[in-house]
Structure formats: structure tokens, C-alpha cells
């Protein structure tokens, strides 16, 4: 356990350094510093992967159970998606200034939660758990990326970008399209996550939907993003307006993920909060 904690704190520290570099690089428009932030983020991701892998091997299951495992892996997916996106679109370096502080805060928050080992027993012993959680990570990762891209789009639209070493390479149209794509992908993944959870609930308890607070708030999140997509596809919302809508929906998803388990008595609470 001590080795794992040391590795994970090393990842937190690396993300913190990356976040500071990214913000400094963005504020002072220093592409080199921004690139350094991304390099440090890559290093942090590698350390984080070792930490997750170490625990996976030790407890015998993927990061599915408890606040610490679940939230830490969200930070991992977020940074991995960002670096993957960056490898395809080099102009997105400034996104580090939005992604890395969030990754640092999320992983730092996870580190403060109890890290007790939760075993796979009873209802948890199902492949649907893996599918449900994997799609949750994909959807939340997509929504967080859409949020960060939305921030960047709003900043980009408000500033004159001529001669700007960082923002000048980003076209608002490309950013807008990326926000849409991540919202749409997250919406799709969230739907699969909800369905996988429903199938699993039916296998485990004999009912696919019970209006448990987490189920209800997951559905509300799905509806919220359906509204965001309708706003774009039928009402024609684009640019900053669409970005604001995509950003406004994220707190609902985060509440469904963390807030509901803290506020309500729910069957999911024990799995997610773990205490």
C-alpha cells in the first residue's frame, strides 16, 4: 500500500507541475512552456498508469470500486484523452491550461479519500460492472474534455487571435466542431453506461430500473446532454452559446457521479463512496 501511495502522490505532484506550467504558458503566451507542460503531463500519466496498474494487480480488479479508485481513474482517462487529442491536433496545446488543473484537483481529491480495498463479491461479480464502469469513464472523460474545449472556445472567441502564439493556431470553427463531437460521443457513451447498469441491475436484483437517486440523476444527465444536442442540431446553437450549454451540463453529470452518493442514501453509495 505504501508503494502505491508514493507512486500516486508522485503522479499528483507531476500533474500539479504540469498545471502550473500550462497556466503560466497560457497566461504569458509561451508555446515552449506550454509544450513543457504537456511533456510533464505525459510523464505524470505514465506514473499514474503505474500507480493504477500496481493497485489493480494488488487488489485483483480494475479501478471500479470506491471513490479513490473511480475518481483517480477519471483523472487518468481525462489526461489520456487530452494527450491523444493533442497527438492529432497539435494546435490544442493551450487546452493543457484547462485539463491539467482539473486533473490535478480530481486526482488530489481522490488521494484524500479512504483507500481501503474493496473486494469483488456478490452483486459486483459481473462482467456488466466492467462494461458499465468503462463506459462511465468514456462518457465522463468526453464531457470533461468538451467542457475544457468549451472554455478554450469561449476564450478564443473573445480575443483577437492575430499574432497570438497559442490561440492564433486555433480556429473557432474547429474548436466548435470538437466540442460538439465530444458532447455527442459522451452522450452516446452515457446511454450505453445507463443501459449496461440497467442490464446489470436486472441480473443482480431482478429489476432494470428502480428510480434509485443515482439512476434518476444519470437519466437527468442524459436528458441534459440531449437538450444540449437538440440546441445545436435543431435550434442551431453554435460557438460560445453552444459551449456555454455544454459546460452548464457538466455539473449535473458530476453531481450524478459524486454528489448523489454523498447526499442520498443509495445502493450505489457503498460501491462508489466506499465508506
Amino acid at each position: 500500500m505504501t508503494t502505491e501511495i508514493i507512486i500516486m502522490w508522485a503522479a499528483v505532484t507531476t500533474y500539479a507541475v504540469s498545471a502550473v506550467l500550462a497556466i503560466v504558458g497560457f497566461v504569458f503566451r509561451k508555446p515552449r512552456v506550454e509544450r513543457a507542460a504537456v511533456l510533464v503531463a505525459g510523464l505524470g500519466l505514465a506514473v499514474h498508469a503505474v500507480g493504477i496498474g500496481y493497485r489493480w494487480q494488488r487488489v485483483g480488479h480494475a479501478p471500479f470500486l470506491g471513490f479513490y479508485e473511480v475518481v483517480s481513474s477519471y483523472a487518468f482517462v481525462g489526461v489520456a484523452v487530452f494527450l491523444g487529442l493533442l497527438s492529432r491536433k497539435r494546435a490544442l496545446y493551450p487546452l493543457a491550461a484547462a485539463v491539467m488543473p482539473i486533473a490535478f484537483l480530481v486526482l488530489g481529491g481522490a488521494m484524500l479519500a479512504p483507500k481501503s480495498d474493496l473486494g469483488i463479491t456478490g452483486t459486483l461479480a459481473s462482467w456488466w460492472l466492467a462494461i458499465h464502469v468503462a463506459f462511465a469513464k468514456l462518457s465522463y472523460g468526453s464531457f470533461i474534455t468538451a467542457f475544457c474545449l468549451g472554455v478554450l472556445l469561449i476564450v478564443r472567441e473573445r480575443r483577437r487571435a492575430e499574432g497570438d502564439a497559442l490561440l492564433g493556431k486555433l480556429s473557432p470553427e474547429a474548436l466548435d466542431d470538437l466540442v460538439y463531437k465530444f458532447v455527442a460521443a459522451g452522450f452516446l457513451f452515457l446511454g450505453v453506461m445507463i443501459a449496461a447498469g440497467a442490464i446489470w441491475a436486472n441480473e443482480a436484483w431482478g429489476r432494470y430500473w428502480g428510480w434509485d437517486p443515482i439512476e434518476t440523476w444519470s437519466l437527468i444527465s442524459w436528458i441534459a446532454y440531449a437538450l444540449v444536442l437538440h440546441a445545436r442540431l435543431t435550434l442551431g446553437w453554435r460557438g460560445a452559446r453552444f459551449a456555454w450549454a455544454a459546460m452548464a451540463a457538466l455539473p449535473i453529470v458530476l453531481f450524478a457521479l459524486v454528489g448523489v452518493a454523498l447526499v442520498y442514501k443509495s445502493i450505489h453509495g457503498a460501491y462508489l463512496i466506499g465508506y
Partner: protein
Amino acid sequence: MPMKPLLTRIYDVLRSRRLAIALLVTLAAWAGLATLVPQSGTSDSPPGGFAAKLASAVGLDRAFSAPVFLFLCALLFASTVACSVERTRAALKLARRAAFLSKGADAVRTLRADFVLSTDLERRAVLERIPRAFQRAGLRARVVSDSAVYATSSRLGLVGSPAFHWLLALLIALIAAGQLTRAEGLMGVPVGSAQVDAKESYGVVSEGPLHARFTSLVIAVPSLALSHVVDGIERGPAPYVELRDGPYLLRAGYVYPNHPLRYKSLVIHANEHGLAIPVVAQDGSGVDVLLDFDEESCVARSVSALEAGGPGGATRITFEVPLDTYRGQCVSAAPRDPRVVWRSTGPSGETSGTVRPGESFEPAPGVALSLGALGYYARLSVVDDWSVYPIYAVFALATLALAISVFLPYREAVAVIEGSDHGCQVGVRVRHARRDPGFGARVRKRVEEIVLGAVEADRRSGDDD
């Protein structure tokens, strides 16, 4: 001006985007508020005061079966159907248009161009290069005449959105039909005995208004494993359940979480287990008393009171079995040396006593009962719902349709070339199903790269000569 027919006006309201958005917002708000109000039938204690009265008046205390919620769902269903019709019409129109244009009709020439490029290349050269440019933009191009090129993405993109909305409507209908015809109940079956799948056998049962009938199949529990390990994982207490139709064994197996027993639309889950003790009256008639574990008090307590008829009237008897402890922890299992504490309330007042299995006792004057051996019972959840697998199938198809709609939207581009051997103009019109402005820019970039780029390349090679 003539009035629109009523049906048309209703349809116009239902297909309105504003109604769809308002419905989604209202349903989300209703569901969110419902999570703040304790729902009737749950163990949460209802709050008092004005807020509770208001919640009860609008139906928020039984939010997901309240008329308001059901009305909103019905309206959402109608709105989704109307929206599906609209999207199907639009898709069919596009498909017909695509078929018409791809035949090289002169209509292509009448389309308004989104951008026009001038080039020194002769028409034939441009006609050769345009399909390549369109292909680079991810389209399938076809030269439809000596002056026009028509290109589209996969026609599958036309199907995505209408299919998703139709499937969503079907999903709502299936869920509603399933809820109306579903039956779900909890029955306690003492180990070594059986119950018939009939309404009277259930302690708790909920039946949809259109549920046809219970199956009358026999559900038996010959044994119960207190610890059941599969693949090295502890699955908890697992009853061995048999489902019989008269003498025929239909299904059998251990039932534990994620491993129910299924037969057609019937699914049997293990819900809980407890103790069971047979109580026999003087006339030989008997009943199994079921007791649930209460770890806080470290006893097993009878689920319901037993009523025994006596000379002075009915006597209600409850039972408790104190449980063993191990290292200060209560053990939820039959104690090694069981004692049964009984309490009776009847015309002769309240009495109580302690007996052991196999002994007799008199809870009221003239009422003699004897206890059998202490055993276990399994509480089974039995669900009869045909709609579950169709719902899964429709959801899978809806997800596929959504993926197509999002990731493979229908795109179209038309190029009309006008000019002579000394240069020509290329008018290009683009169309994107989700009105992505970036698509037009991408097509333009490709056309410029390949058509105008070719001119530059020709010029450079001319200069070299």
C-alpha cells in the same frame, strides 16, 4: 384563411422543437425534485409540513407513477413519434433527391453554388480532378454528366436520426407495455418445500393492470448453501431452486446475484434468506413461520404474526429466535442450541414463553401448538416480464442508430463546371446533415488543393520547361 384541421394542428404542436425541449426540461426537473421527496412505499420517513402536503398534492411522493409523470411520458412519446415522422420525411426527401441528382439530371445545374472557383484548366481536366477532391473529403463521387459531379457520403447517414427517434419511441412504448403487463413479487419458500406461482403465494406482490395471469408453476427450494463460492468468488447464501410444471422439471440451479433462474418470461432471484420453523396445531394442520435476521438486536424475528383460533377468539402469536455471536459479532445463521421465544396477544391477554424445537406450548387457553425442527427459508423475487429482452434489443439498435447519426452524418456535394478549353468556373454546393460549417470549408480546401493546386503545379512545370 381556412382553418387548419384539428389533427393537423395537434400534429404541428407535437412536432414542435420547443415542445420537445420543454418536455425534456420538465421531465428532468420532475425527476430531480422526486429525488428530494421520500417516495411512498420506501423506508424513508415522510417529512411533515406544507412542503410535504404540496409534494403529495402534485404527486411527487409517488413521482414515477403519478398522473402528471405518466401524462408527461405519454406526451413525450407522441412528440417523439411526430419528430420521427418529420425526420423520416426529410430523409426520404433527401434520398429521392440524391437518386434524382445522381442520374445526371439537368436539375444539378440549377442548384445555387456555395462557392465558385475559377481555373485555367480545361473542362475535361477539371472533371477528372473534382471526383478526387470529393473523395479526399470523405465522399463517394460520381460524374453524372459532362459538366457535373455529384458526391455523397454513405446513405446510411440518412437513416441514423430517423431510426434513432423511431426506436426511442418504440422503447418508450415497450417500457410502458412491460410495466402494464409485468408482475413482480416476493415469496418465502422454506428449504425442503415448494410454493406455487400464484398471487396468494406472495408476501408482497405488484401486478400491472394488464398482467394476464400467474403461471401456476411450482417453485421448490430443496436446499440452501449458506456460502456459495463460484470461480473463487464468494456469492453469499444461495438457494438451489427448481421450477416444475407438475412432474416435469423445467429449470433448476443455484440462484445468487447475477445468476437468476430463468424460464421464458419468468426470472427468479434470491432476495434474502432467514429461518423457518414449522408450527403444528392439535388437529395436525401446520404452517411454516418465517423469521428474518435482525443483526442489530441479534435475533431472528417472525415476518408476520401467526393467528390461531381458540375458544375465546383469535390469538396473534409472534416468534423470536436469539442468534449466536462470534467474537462479539452477531451470526446470521441458525443457532447451535436454538430457543424460540413466543409472545401471544388474544382474548386472554398477553403471555409469552420460551420453547425449543420439537416441544409444545400453549399460547392461549385451549390452543396447543408444537414446533418442528428449525431450518432456513429463501425469500425469492419472482418477476414475470416479457419486455426485458425486447427492451435490450431496441436499446442496442437505438445506440447503433445514434452512433450512425452522430459519427456518420449524411453529406453531399455537387460540382457544376462551366467553361471552355481555355479555362472554366467550378460552382460547388455542399450539404451536411447536421449543418456543420466546417464541412464546406473542408470540401473547398480539397477542391482548391486538387483543382487550383493542379494549376499551380502545371504553371510550375511550365516555368521549368
